[in-house]
């Protein structure tokens, strides 16, 4: 019977074409607006490393001066060089890394390629395995290179191709910071979404941009390379001038990551950090009450507000708009169905039960939903295209996947069925005798 009713529904689309077109269009526009904005929200709040996101942790320690302390203050998002070095040496967690942004100029020595500026990061070796960075050639630098603070470098794919074309440059050297750096590896295109490992100071924002090169953390420090990014000296600045004074200061500029064995390591690591701060207090640091946070990837993204408030606002208002479209569809269906009271009367008189009538008309409403959903899908792609025109960042997140595609269609059908409930119920109330009499 369903197929028959579906067929009837399709035929009925051709009846009152204006009313039907209006209904389909209303539904399609409502679904498209809400799905386009929701897709953006969905991609923005996605888990970039699902199998591991609950055991990668960012520690935050409150090393600010006592003055101005208030209960519930958030610790800084980054940490000092002193703490980063101590935590790297602590051996806590399975892996650990400290990351800061570095910028430098590369002298290719080629006459056709004048010196140019590059942006990269200085992490420790664990970084590559922690974040599962894919390599195209070679691999991370060795532990001994790291310990000896040697000038070794891992290139991003784009930079490698710019300098050496498609051949593997592993083992070759490039000039940077007045030194020769040996290339240990080249990473493949790597674009986690959101770019969770570099939400602070990443060039390009939370969703776009890529690091052009990677050098060992301690090597970068021994070259006295500055931090290209946020440097927060709460309260007092460095007590001594120059780079060494900065390293000894309470300025926060390094981002730290721990990898735990399991998600349950979070509590244990947090206890360790509290004990660490207690130890540091003995050295005259950390004047505030112990205030330690340890967030996993999703908590960290939540803390930094990766999903913008504007994206949420747009989605909410778009769903409000869908609600209006729904109410509108109810009205239009009511108009359409009530014009056919006579037809219902005849069917009822010929023996159809209320249940049958209910099935038939709800199916007809669902047909409107299917057609509206297909059109809505097209419009959603249009909407996403419009959104992606805004900026490179939005172009990265305005992508529809299969789940969203299916959701769009189902949303439309569910919406149309919901909208069809009241008009269908009203159609079922038709008294056959009355209808037949007025004919």
């Amino acid at each position, binding site marked *: 019977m369903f197929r028959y009713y579906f067929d009837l529904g399709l035929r009925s689309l051709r009846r009152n074409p204006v009313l039907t077109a209006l209904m389909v269009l209303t539904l399609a526009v409502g679904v498209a607006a809400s799905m386009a904005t929701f897709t953006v929200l969905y991609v923005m709040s996605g888990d970039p490393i699902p199998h591991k996101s609950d055991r990668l942790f960012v520690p935050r320690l409150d090393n600010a001066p006592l003055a101005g302390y208030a209960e519930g203050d958030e610790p800084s998002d980054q940490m000092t060089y002193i703490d980063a070095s101590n935590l790297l040496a602590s051996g806590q967690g399975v892996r650990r890394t400290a990351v800061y942004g570095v910028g430098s*100029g590369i002298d290719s020595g080629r006459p056709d390629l004048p010196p140019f500026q590059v942006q990269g990061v200085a992490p420790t070796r664990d970084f590559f395995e922690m974040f599962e960075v894919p390599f195209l050639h070679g691999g991370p630098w060795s532990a001994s290179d790291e310990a000896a603070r040697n000038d070794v470098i891992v290139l991003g794919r784009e930079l490698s191709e710019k300098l050496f074309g498609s051949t593997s440059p592993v083992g070759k050297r490039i000039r940077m910071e007045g030194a020769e750096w040996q290339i240990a590896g080249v990473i493949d295109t790597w674009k986690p979404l959101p770019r969770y490992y570099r939400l602070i100071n990443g060039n390009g924002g939370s969703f776009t941009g890529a690091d052009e090169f990677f050098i060992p953390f301690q090597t970068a420090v021994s070259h006295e390379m500055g931090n290209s990014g946020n440097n927060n000296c709460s309260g007092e600045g460095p007590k001594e001038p120059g780079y060494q004074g900065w390293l000894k200061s309470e300025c926060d500029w390094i981002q730290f990551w721990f990898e735990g064995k399991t998600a349950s390591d979070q509590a244990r690591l947090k206890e360790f950090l509290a004990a660490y701060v207690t130890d540091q207090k003995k050295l005259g640091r950390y004047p505030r009450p112990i205030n330690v946070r340890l967030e996993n990837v999703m908590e960290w993204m939540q803390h930094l507000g990766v999903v913008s408030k504007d994206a949420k606002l747009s989605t909410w208002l778009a769903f409000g708009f869908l609600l209006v479209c729904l109410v509108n569809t109810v009205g239009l269906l009511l108009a359409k169905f009530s014009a056919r009271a006579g037809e219902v009367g005849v069917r009822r008189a010929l023996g159809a039960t209320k249940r049958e009538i209910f099935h038939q008309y709800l199916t007809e409403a669902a047909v409107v939903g299917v057609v509206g959903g297909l059109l809505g899908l097209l419009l959603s792609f249009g909407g996403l295209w419009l959104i992606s025109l805004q900026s490179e960042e939005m172009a990265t997140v305005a992508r529809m996947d299969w789940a969203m595609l299916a959701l769009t269609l189902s949303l439309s059908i569910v919406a149309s069925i919901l909208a069809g409930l009241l008009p269908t119920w009203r159609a079922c109330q038709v008294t056959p005798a009355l209808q037949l009499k007025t004919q």
Partner: protein
Amino acid sequence: MELRPILSSLLRNKTGALLIAAQVALSLAIVANALYIIRDRLALTARPSGVAEENNVFRISVGPLKAPETAEGKIANQQRNADVLRALPGVSSVAWTNQAPLGRSGWNMGLNLDPKQTESSANSSLYFGPDSLVKTYGLKIIEGRDFTADDVQLIDPETTKGLGRYGMVSQALAKKLFPTGSAVGKTLYLGGASDPQPFQIVGVVERLQSPWAQSSEVGEFSVILASRWADTYSMYAVRTEPGQRDRVMKEAEAALLKAIPGQMVVNNKSLEEDRDDIYRDDRALAWMLITVTVLLLLVTASGIVGMATLWVNQRRKQIGVRRALGARRFDILRYFITENLVITSGGIVAGLLLAVALNQLLVSQLELTKLPIGYLAVGSLVLWLIGVLAVYGPAWRASSISPAIATRSA
């Protein structure tokens, strides 16, 4: 008036009227809030940066492949670059600086009125402007004076700790720190209580936004210090003759690459591009909301048209009878328009409450501000107007129903 028959007929056939009223209510709630947010965002993007004739200004930053060893070497490079830029045709003014308004990266410092203070009186962005920043940006000095060559201090971060002795502040910052008196001649302290670094205010500029142009008052807080910071990377603000900017930008890049061996151009951006970039999201949101608002009003109007058409069709016979009994076409028209006004008014009353509720939700969840009453008034007016316009067509068709209909059987 015929309100009584309208009301009694509405009460007899509630569903359709309720649906229209609900739609109007929801639309009003969304439209009022959307209009408010649109207005708010567009006002944000329209704030002046303080730079006169923005279209003639750009910034260019350079860095060396290898930094000069000494502070003198770095400063010599800065001056050489500025001279190279000044020599370009079409350039009217050049200033070495460290950051640009709306440039989205720069220095931010706490300011204290008292050297022993532990909590800052204000946070402000910090510009270095030892040579002609005021002239290049076309800033308006409303009190005090511009820097003279004697004010300028050379600072080597490797050896000195201070940031400078003389400064200017933006008017917003002056008012915040010295609400009653004049700021000129006063002393401010940079850095914390452990190491306060005083500087004296010599002038107040009318306006200079920070590199981040925050929406709060902080976006208007700026300090300009008469210091030359021996930095390896340096930025130059450039003002060109009208219409010459794009050409000068290209030539500046080429000239700076040649000026010092191994020098790289890190950034070359017009203030216009900076303005586009910093407000891109706000503009996008405003456009998205404008689109939703327009669609919403169209959908609501189409709902009213649909429902009114249905009612007219259902009542053809009654209309015929009324016409036969002496009602004029105008009376029929008036009946439907009044009926619609009653329904929309009901919807609007509910919508006002909904709008306030939605605003409350947005305030609590997304840190928006409270909706001013004016937007409710405008929203209501728009929906009333749309209601009348939408019903006019079906009502006009109803009024043209011939009285002869009454005499026919069906």
